[in-house]
Structures are given as C-alpha cells and as structure tokens.
C-alpha cells in the first residue's frame, strides 16, 4: 500500500518536472527568431560609423554632416521609383541647403552608371556608392524586405526622425523637413 502511494506521488512529481521543462524548452524555442532591426539610436550609431566612397573614389564618413538636417536617400539608377523622386530632392537641396538641409544619396549600383545619372540629373548633393554593409544597414534600419528607395531623415541633434519606404513626394518631404530647420 505505502509503496503504491509513493509511486503515485513520484509519478506526479516526475510528470510535473517533465512538463515544466518541456514547457520551458517549448517557450524558448519560439524565442529563437532572430531580430535584425535596431532601435533608432542604434541605427544612428551604425549610420555615423559608416564610411563609403564617393564618385571620385574618395572615402566619406556619414558623420561629417552632423549638426545639419540630413536626408539619406538609398537608391539605384535601375530603380524607376528612385529616379522619380530625385528631381524633387535636387530642388529641396537648392531651396533649403542654406538653412542647414543636407541630402546624401547612397546608390546601390555601379559607379559609372551613378556618375552618368548624377551628371544628367544635375544632382547637387553628395552621392556615395554603397555595398554589402549598406544593405545590412538598410535591414537594421527597419527595411526588412530590402527595398529601394529608402530614405532616412535625421534632425540636427542626430535623432532618426523619419524612415520612408518608397518614392517620396517633394511636398511630403518638405513638410517633414521644415519643422526641423
């Protein structure tokens, strides 16, 4: 009689322990999904740590425009929606450049195509060439599907205040930028 009861208690105890660990493992296993996007602050750290080459082949750090309102536009010449928004950027740079607005283009493309495009469209702001690490940066900035155009808006204090996926209308961007200037 006694052994039987003890056996019952043992079964209950073992079952609870197994259940507990199984639940733990199960709940942990669903936590293994990798998250690649960062907080805005961490994105800005990555942005400022990024160095790219310009169209002349010289190294340029993205941190050199600290203190201005910076719009970083990721694009490519083969991407039609990217090309459509660039004349608007050129116009905004012309009008607000003196007030502290700085556009920076980061092209995920072949340098010769980019240079040709920049000449033809009279791009009046720096255009840099992005590689593998820029794609990584894009994803961490929240652009998980990896699409272009993608635009980051950074205020004078270096805070990431806007992330825009897809083509930006000149008027919409203007409304976003004006309060920051």
């Amino acid at each position, binding site marked *: *009689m006694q052994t039987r009861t003890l056996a019952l208690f043992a079964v209950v105890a073992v079952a609870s322990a197994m259940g507990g660990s199984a639940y733990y493992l199960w709940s942990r296993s669903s936590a293994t999904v990798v*998250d690649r*996007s960062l907080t805005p602050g961490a994105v800005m750290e990555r942005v400022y740590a990024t160095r790219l080459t310009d169209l002349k082949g010289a190294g340029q750090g993205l941190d050199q425009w600290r203190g201005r309102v910076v719009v970083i536009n990721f694009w490519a010449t083969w991407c*039609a929606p990217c090309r459509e928004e660039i004349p608007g950027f050129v116009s905004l740079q012309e009008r607000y450049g003196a007030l502290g607005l700085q556009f920076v283009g980061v092209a995920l493309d072949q340098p010769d195509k980019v240079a040709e495009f920049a000449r033809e469209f009279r791009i009046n702001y720096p255009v840099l060439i992005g590689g*593998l690490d820029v794609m990584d940066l894009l994803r961490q900035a929240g652009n998980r*599907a990896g699409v272009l155009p993608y635009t980051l808006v950074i205020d004078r204090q270096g805070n990431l205040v806007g992330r825009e*996926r897809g083509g930006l209308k000149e008027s919409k961007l203007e409304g976003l930028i004006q309060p920051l200037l």
Partner: protein
Amino acid sequence: MMRFVLLLLLLCASLARGAEPDLLEPDKAFRFSARLKDAHSIEVNYQIAPGYYLYRDKFRFALTPAEAKAGAAQFPRGEKHKDEFFGEVETYRGSLSIVLPFEVAKADISAIKLAVTSQGCADVGVCYIPYEQNAELKLAALTSSAPRSDAPASPFGVPAAAPAAGGDDDRVAALLGGGFWLAVASFFGFGLLLSFTPCVLPMVPILSGIIIGAGRPVTRTKGFTLAAVYVLGMAITYAAAGVAAGLSGAMLSATLQNPWVLGAFAAIFVVLALSMFGFYELQLPATLQSRLSGASNRLPGGQGLGVFAMGVLSALIVGPCVAAPLAGALLYISQSRDVVLGGAALFSMALGMGVPLLAVGASAGALLPKAGAWMESVKRFFGALLLAVAIYLVSPFTPLPLQMFLWGALLVGSAVYLRAVDTLPADAGGVQRFGKVVGLIALVAGGAYLIGAFSGSRDIFQPLAGLRATGGVETAHATPFQRIASVAELDARIRDAAGKPVMLDFYADWCVSCKEMERFTFSDERVKTRFQGMTLLQADVTANTAEHGALLKRFRLFGPPGIIFFDRDGREMQGLRVIGFQPAERFAAVLDQAIGQ
C-alpha cells in the same frame, strides 16, 4: 516533430505576411526554383507575384564549383518599356523560365550549386535590392532539389530576411491553413504540448478527486473510463464553445471568466475538498442514488454524467491558460467560417490535452490503495490540492494580502494534517519522519505567508520582502499606460503619438496572463527602457461594454490577452501581435522590432 511543423508553418506565415504590410518578402514576390533540363542545361523558373516584375538584363548566374561553367542564358521575350535613362528595358511578369547552358570540366562532379541574382520591383513604387537565390542540382540523378536562399556570395547578394517574430495566434492560424487532417493532427500534438504546461495541472487533482471520490474500489478500467468521460466532456466543450464563439465573435472567455463564475467554481472545489477531509459524505438522496446506480449498471463508467459535467466545467476554467491556441483557432474559424475544421481542431487539441489525464485515470485505478487508512491520507492530499485550485481560481480578483493569507492558511492546515505539530513516537518509521519534514516545511512557509499577509508584502513570491529593514518595500512602478475605452479614443491617441510607435495592451481583471505580463515582463528593466520611446495604451475590457466589444472586434480579438503594435504612421504592424504571456527576454525582442519598424 511538432515543433518542426510549427516552425515550418511559422516561416511560411511570416514570409506570407511579411515584415512590412502590403509588401512581399523577395522570396515570396519572386518564387525561385531550378532543375536540370538535361545534362547540359539548367531550367531556372520564377513565379512572379502579381504586381511585381523582374528586369531581364539584371540577372546574374554563378555556378560552383569552379569546374562548372555557365554559358549564355536564353531568356524568353519580355515586356518592353521605354526607360528615360536606360532606353529600352525588358521586364517579366507572371511565370518566367530561363534556360542556362553549362559545361562541367571534370566528370566526377556529382552536384553543382547555382546562385542567381535578380533585380525586380513592385508596382507600388519600390524596387528590391539585388537578391540572390540558390539551388543545388544533382548531376548524377538529373533531379532537382529544393531552392534555398542563404548568405550572400556577391556584393549585391543579400541574405534572406529573418522571419519576423509572429504572434502565437499567427502560428496557430497558420497551422490551420494546412490540410484538414494535418491541422487536426497538429492540434492534437499541440494539445499534448499544452498538457505539459502548468495550465493542465489543476485538472489532475480535480480528476483524481473525482476518481477517489467515487469511494468504492476503483479498478483500472473504471479509472480509465472515468478519465475518458471527463476528457470527452472537456473536448466537446472546447469544440462547441470554439465554434459558437467563432460564429458570433463574442468574448467567450470574458463571459465565463468573470469573478462570479470563477468564484462559484472555487466554492465547488472547497465543498469537494471538505468532503475529502471527511467532514461530510457527499451523497445524493438515497432514492435518487439507487435509481442512478441502477442506471449505471447498464451504463459503463458509473456516475458518467457528473464526471462529464465536471469535464465541461474544467475546460472553461483552464480556458484563459490556453488563450493563445484558442485565440488562433477562433481567429481562423471566424475568418474562414470553416466551422467543421475549427471544431475538429479544437476537439483534437482537447483530446491531446487529456492524454496525461487518461494516464492518471488508468494509473489511479492501479496505483491507489483499495481501502484502509492510507486511502484517507490520499484523500486529504487531494483535498488540499482542490483547495489550492480554488485559491488559484479566485486569485486574479483577490487582493494580494488576502491571497497570501489563504495560501498561508492552506499551508498551515496541511502541516497540521501532516502531523507537523504532533510528537513523533520514538520508533517512527521513515515515511512518518519524511511526512513530518514536509509538514514542518509547509508550516514554516505557511507562517511566512501569514506574516507577509499581515505585514503588507506586495510580492506573492517573496512574502517576507516587506520585512527587509534596509531594502524596504519594493516600489513596483506601475507601467505608465494611458487608458482607452473606445475605438475613437484609440484613434485619437494614435494620432497624438505622432511618430512614436504605439503599443496597445488589452487587459481585464480576470485575465491571468495579463497579470503575469504586468508582474514579470512589464516590470523588467529591459522592457522598461524600451517602453520609454513608445506610447503605451491599455484597454481595460473587464466591464465588457459594447465599445469594448467594438475595440476587440477591430483587431479580430476575442478577448484579452492581446498586445498590438502600431508603427510610426499609426498602422498596425501585422505579424507582431503578442497573445498570452511572454517572458521579458522574448517580449523585449518583440519591442525592438516594433521600435525598429
């Protein structure tokens, strides 16, 4: 296996829903596959989603090992567009098949790897950065293999996007998306998994109580039959309640989990427990009893109806504990109106949950003593467990000091029954001494709870924390939620958030996992720091007004728990919902995603 299926389906689900609404992941937008056409050419196939296109002149092919050389790819005719910058460009939509000739320099190569980089865009006005997809082709067998995407080999290749952390409800809804029998089988497995969660443990003493309470010697068969009837009651309730709630979209758990219903259940358990302690015999009037026993002679399983009813009740009690799978199944039913599948899935889930109970039933018949003094001890043990279940049931809406008092009282009472305060005879055996040890531990723990209750401790897991001289009482800062009560209020608050991500937490007093979330997760430092950049909203739907119902309906929720995130533009972030309790670490990862959006 179960976990594998789950993860697989989760992957599909997250790819399908995508991290960003209204935009497909590249793997889904451009479905890639490749096969050997013959010994010298590969057929590369793309299934391009409607609204998406690929550029003809942007494809790049690479073969490994180096002995394999790719020739000039043969493309079909595409759509021609005038491009102001590139002149004429050709694009592909729908299905695309490219033939890639190749030569292998060495004869002993059995497999080659193909990496195709493609570039495409969506009509909504975005383009994908160059995307690499891979396939392995076995030359010997001339068979194809599943395509896959992995880490980039070229500077323009990109790794497959990490799947977003889908909410539990997504995962379950995804499960239901498969075949009928797969879904039913998966849910059975899911139930089996759930049976290992603490949720189901309260059912063990209930069932054991029933079996022992039957009084007469319980045979193995009878124990098993009783358990089976109990499980059946539970399963039918889940199926029926699931279907009903799915059809009406009503807040099932709210109606069944309000303090009155839970209080009534707790009272039933107390009554049952007291009879276990031998204060009285629970018996039906003699006439009724004789009639019933006459019936039960014909009906195998004896007091089947009562046990069945108990199973029905138990299903309702454990409901909030299994909220996530329940919400997922209900979500699916309400959306697809596939009542048969939804009901069948819930039914099989409950059966899965019942497997260990069947084991208990079968073993109780075998393991429990037939008669004698030991029978009384076991009865008392289960009586104590029933009381514990009663306290657990009322704990969501009981003030903490009262909860602690009840736990303390139960522990002290158990200690007395374990004869912790009686002197042991000098010749006491091992079992008696062991019982005394357990009793003394219970006595001390019970004392601690009683002291905690009277000294205003605020933490049920640290009853004496309030007595710490220097540390003082921990000032548990409540999470700074803004309360909302209607859809209009929600919209206004989201507008006010202006650029900040918003978290909306559905809460109710009866929702145990909401309380757990508050106590263990929201209070965690990692979570608190992430909360700082967010607007936190909470909808307390305890009262369950029509406006609360509208709020829940908007998010296709049937009741709390449920946490929903909105991006900086005020749109819900699909696939990021949190339903049910999540530990701080996991929840912090979800918050990172919400902030990073």
